[in-house]
């Protein structure tokens, strides 16, 4: 049935599916891209680093529930159909994103603020858990059998384009409003904007038809009575679920989230790069690398999915530490010589009382511009003690703007990491679809995908930041988590996976 679908129809199917999925990814990622600002809004002002870790934990909570969403909506998709299920996930995702934009801050409602955001974040995670498997299955079930990798790779671009869109909207909103207004209330705009995008997507999806393979199955009365039982209580299917998880999606997930999320977090929080600079670097990297999703997806139709995905993991294992060491070395401005400095501008000093003591903290900020075009803010926060006088603290260099050649070098390093993402992620939808039969495909492929991406991948920024905060760790210590997981997945995938493609998924 799918083999006879006209070419313009398959592109309509891809367009309608991809737009909704892209919007869901956008909704999901704006939270992560604004973690630092949201942390200030949701937690007490003196929470410091724990505000960021707690915000990343709320961000991670959305990932952790994705497998549960996969079970709930996957089951629904195998029972009532693909179309209505991913229409429902779109409504849940859009509604909860919009409501996050309306939540009052900690100053207004105390700890109710992070609790409400956590609940909405959990709904987002559940919705996303149901969305992706539906979209990938829907497109694959329309695609011709020898081009399934190519056509599903368009769905694969949506996660990265959703991230691109979220970064773009954030940067544009911040540039229009200014940093202060954006940090105060402007951060809500990207969340509120989501409702417009979702309404457009719902309108388009309402016009879509059910998947031909599912319709055929339904007409013949062969749909599954209990998809969860048939997926996970049947050894022949369950062993493939486990193989898909440990041999593919687990490694794919950590490569995805290291290249696109941890990289951004590392540049902003560890290297102390300027807010806009870190996002522009990622935006350029994504723009250059995104076409490779389709290239690797199409190539997998010719040479098989396995070795393309596993090569991406291997390259990540080899190159992550050298890449992140370069990030650190090139943003180390502490050894700048005086004759490299073009100008320095001292800002007015500020002082705040330390609660319950007679002492205060004095902050001196100096803007430094270098002759090579780089700049940074030098911040020194001294303690003014009534009994001991001035106790100077170590200087912190932040808001670093890179010189042009280093900026483009960083774009290249991010591009390379996203290229690895395209290798592991471009072919994986076709790979998963071909492992499972039509009547339990939605359920069976969604679970390993969302454990691999939601749990192993989604926890990369959180676990890596946690590891890097241990005593005795270095800024690169956090990388051992994605490297270790990718290595394990590479070994299992190499030994156990088959490179053979299933020509007919109409079963």
């Amino acid at each position, binding site marked *: 049935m799918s083999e006879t679908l006209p070419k313009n129809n398959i592109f309509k199917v891809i367009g309608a599916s991809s737009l909704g999925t892209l919007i869901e990814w956008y909704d999901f990622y704006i939270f992560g891209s604004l973690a630092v600002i949201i942390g200030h809004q949701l937690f007490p002002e003196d929470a410091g680093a*724990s505000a960021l*870790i*707690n915000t990343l*934990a709320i961000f*991670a*909570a959305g990932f*952790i529930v994705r497998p549960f969403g996969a079970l709930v909506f996957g089951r629904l998709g195998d029972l009532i159909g693909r179309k209505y299920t991913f229409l429902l996930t779109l409504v849940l995702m859009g509604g909860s994103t919009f409501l996050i934009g309306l939540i009052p801050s900690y100053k207004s409602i105390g700890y109710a603020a992070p609790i409400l955001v956590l609940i909405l974040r959990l709904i987002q995670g559940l919705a996303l858990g149901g969305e992706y498997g539906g979209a990938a299955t829907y497109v694959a079930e329309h695609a011709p059998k020898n081009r399934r990798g190519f056509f599903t790779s368009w769905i694969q671009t949506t996660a990265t384009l959703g991230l691109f869109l979220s970064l773009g909207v954030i940067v544009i909103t911040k540039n229009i409003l200014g940093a202060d207004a954006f940090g105060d209330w402007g951060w809500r705009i990207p969340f509120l904007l989501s409702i417009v995008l979702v309404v457009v997507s719902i309108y388009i999806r309402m016009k879509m038809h059910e998947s031909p393979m599912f319709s055929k199955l339904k007409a013949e009365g062969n749909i599954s009575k209990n998809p969860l039982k*048939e997926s996970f209580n*049947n*050894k*022949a*299917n369950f*062993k*493939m679920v*486990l*193989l898909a*998880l*440990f041999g593919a999606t687990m490694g794919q997930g950590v490569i995805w989230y290291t290249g696109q999320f941890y990289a951004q977090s590392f540049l902003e929080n560890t290297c102390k790069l300027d807010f806009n600079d870190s996002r522009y670097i990622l935006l350029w990297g994504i723009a250059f690398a995104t076409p490779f999703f389709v290239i690797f997806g199409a190539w997998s139709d010719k040479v098989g999915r396995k070795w393309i995905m596993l090569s991406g993991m291997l390259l990540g294992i080899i190159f992550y530490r050298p890449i992140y060491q370069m990030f650190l070395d090139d943003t180390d401005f502490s050894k700048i010589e005086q004759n490299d400095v073009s100008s320095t501008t001292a800002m007015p000093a500020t002082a705040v009382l330390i609660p319950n003591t007679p002492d205060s903290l004095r902050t001196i900020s100096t803007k430094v511009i270098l002759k090579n075009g780089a700049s940074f803010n030098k911040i020194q926060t001294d303690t003014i003690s009534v009994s001991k006088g001035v106790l100077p603290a170590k200087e912190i260099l932040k808001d670093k703007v890179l010189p042009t050649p280093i900026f483009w070098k960083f774009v290249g390093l991010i591009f390379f990491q996203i290229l690895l993402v395209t290798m592991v992620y471009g072919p994986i939808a076709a790979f998963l*679809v*071909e*492992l*499972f*039969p*039509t009547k339990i*495909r939605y359920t069976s492929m969604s679970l390993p995908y969302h*454990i691999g991406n939601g*749990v192993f991948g989604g*926890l990369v920024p*959180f*676990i890596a930041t*946690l590891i890097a905060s*241990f*005593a005795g760790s270095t800024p690169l210590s956090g990388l051992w988590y994605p490297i270790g997981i990718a290595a394990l997945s590479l*070994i*299992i995938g190499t*030994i*156990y996976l*088959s490179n*053979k493609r*299933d*020509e*007919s*998924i109409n*079963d």
Partner: protein
Amino acid sequence: MNALKKFLGLVWMVLGPLAMTFLFIQAVEKVGLTHTDIERTNTILQWGIILFIFLPISLGLMIFGFYAWKGEYEKLPDNSAL
């Protein structure tokens, strides 16, 4: 290759509980290092979530190892039909 698949099945079966033990020891150590009340609560919450999430996954790795040891992956099916 089939012998290697079977032998590594034993490794995966052992790796599951080993990974959980390692995580549990790390959790106890890190919670013990924290001092103040809110910091301790945060650390317990974070590690509690990590242990809760990775426990069923390590169980899955053990089952995967068991299947490999029993030779379930010696020949994979040619198509997606059950």
